[in-house]
């Protein structure tokens, strides 16, 4: 199945290396991946292909890796309503602006170099959205209260 994994790590780059190595070893097929530095560490977001039976194990494995602060995983919902969208575009693309216009209350969870994860309050039907906009539903998170920031249209 296609799923999206969002990870926050401590500031030691070796933790991110471990995670990439775990993806390799556990057979997580990376469709797209983005990484951004934060003051407290790194954020990694990846859309991945994994057999459905393995997803829960990998989520649990990732959340117990030393140096990983939080893990959240989202399931791709190509047909149904989704409360999150992932934009997988080129850095100069205007897709983000279009999505923000369509969903003015959207909050940005992650943003870096054309890859954005947005929460769309209330959920919306995204049928007809451009191909680089992928709808997701959040399944599990180790974050008690997700820290979301309102995105500004550029």
């Amino acid at each position, binding site marked *: 199945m296609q799923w999206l994994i969002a990870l926050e790590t401590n500031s*030691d780059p*070796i933790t991110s*290396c*471990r995670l990439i*190595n775990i993806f390799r*070893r556990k057979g997580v097929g990376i469709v797209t991946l983005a990484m951004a530095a934060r003051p407290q560490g790194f954020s990694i977001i990846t859309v991945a292909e994994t057999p459905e039976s393995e997803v*829960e*194990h*990998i989520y*649990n*494995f990732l*959340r*117990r890796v*030393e*140096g990983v602060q939080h893990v959240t995983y989202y399931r791709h919902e190509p047909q149904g309503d989704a409360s999150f969208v992932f934009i997988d575009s080129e850095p100069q693309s205007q897709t983000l602006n279009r999505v923000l216009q369509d969903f003015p209350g959207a909050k940005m969870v992650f943003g870096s170099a054309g890859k954005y994860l947005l929460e769309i309050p209330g959920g919306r039907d995204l049928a007809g959205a451009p191909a680089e906009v992928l709808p997701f539903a959040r399944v599990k998170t180790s974050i008690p209260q997700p820290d979301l920031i309102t995105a500004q249209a550029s």
Partner: protein
Amino acid sequence: MPLKQSGSEILLESLRREGVDVFFGLPGGVVLPLYDALYSSGVRHLLVRHEQAAAFAADGYARATGKVGVCLGTSGPGATNLVTALTSAMMDSIPVVALTGQVPLHLIGKDAFQECDTVGITMPSTKRSFLVRSASDIPDIMHEAFKTAVSGRPGPVLVDLPKNVLMEPGEPTYFNEQGMEKKERIREWTDADLERAADMILESRRAVLYVGGGMIASAAWDELRELAELANIPVTTTLMGLGGFPSEHPLSLGMLGMHGSYATNQSICNCDLLIAVGARFDDRVTGRLKDFASLSKKIHIDVDPSEINKNVRIDVGLVGDARQSLRALITAIRRRKDQNPSPAARQQWLQRIDSWRGEHPLTYDRYSSAMKPQYVIETLSRYSAEDAIVSVDVGQHQMWTAQFWKFRQPRTWLCSSGLGSMGYGFPAAMGAQLAFPDRQVIAFVGDGGFQMTLNDLATVAQYKVPVKIAIINNRALGMVRQWQELFFEKRYCDTDLNFAPNFAMLAESYGIRGRRVDHRADVKDAVQEFLSDREPGLLDFWVDPSENVYPIVPPGASLAEMVVEPPRVLAEEEVLDDLWAV
């Protein structure tokens, strides 16, 4: 005014404050400042002859004590020589802190002499690895390293120490508490999960407790025994769980899996409830996965959430410390005293297991005139002390010891179980002996594995470490040869070890008493003499080389398809009887 100390002094003081009473290592260029500080520090260090032995010794120390074992290697080859042992500790969840020297910070990445990317190389072999950048950071990092090693699912942690950090002055702020004392274990189960598990136990008629190394790591052996006796449930242990439940307890089933007994594996195949505690449904335990305990519901208690549903579908997963979880489960069951688990059904189940024991007991040819390896192990078990610690290498002798040694206490079994690293047994025994100088520590090794780490005979001789080495010598890489015999049409390729040193004479050359034992009749006397003193010693038992490990579950087969005994060669009269019968 803050105290100024060198990085090396800070490191040694941090080790002392973390409760380290001994560590194992071998010096080299970049760690010279550390050894210089060690000279007058009063911290005990054991000079090994190869860094792999240092890490295996730290592992053995950790398994025997439940504390963190510490080892040290210099940069480059010193560090890479630790990797096998760290990987073994990672597989078996053993808390080890490995210290490695590193080239000075300004030379990292410049291909300096004896430089290697230690943190990168050990990334998958450790829980966490640190590169220290300042002497003042050392107390924090060491504290975190010890805490990490014991927290959650325990495991090895590496601290890489550049030479300039070891030399520079720093202003340390030490901790008053040890990192080991701050271990954290998550608890994710709810009361509803616990009640459901208790219901399942009370409703079951043919339950089995299946227990692994997690039970030892959380010191849950008293709770295990209490639960087993309370609900009258038989207990099987994995290779990692041996010692956690007494072998001679009436509810003991011994080891399960590839070389488990017929009764044990039958009980797994026929149980209606499997309660896994700190075990990971390893392929050597389960055989063909889809047929493993297929008639049962399953409860799984584990501190690592990623173990639940990893290999086998679980009905109730209790993520948490084994000891706390078992205690809560016992309380929940006791609370419902009136819902007594059907005693008659439980008794019938135990009787059925007994009948399987009777059909195919775990045995060998006890009347053979040849010196059977199992006989040697049984004899050593019989004459050893109640609290003796036994260490093994990997291969046939390992499985025979797991089958025939009488385990009486927890933390008396040292075994590289997951990685299966030959060369482990002897240095691990050395580490355990350092922790318990007054107890018997016996290293069972094969003639193959022993040749991988026997250079540390010099270490035990130098420090008079009274380890007893019992070589189960079948002049072969026995387990590999067994597989060639059974599964590769007896095409024996490179498993013959007839070209080997005289181990007894080799021991003597190090100043260690050595003796070769060739005959069954000499075993008892040799063992009694061997165990009678407090000196290192070596016995080289030339056992029957044709003996194989049975029962065996062939690769890819289910536990029900186990082969319980070797194909019997018929005597001439039996062949004639068969012909007449036709």
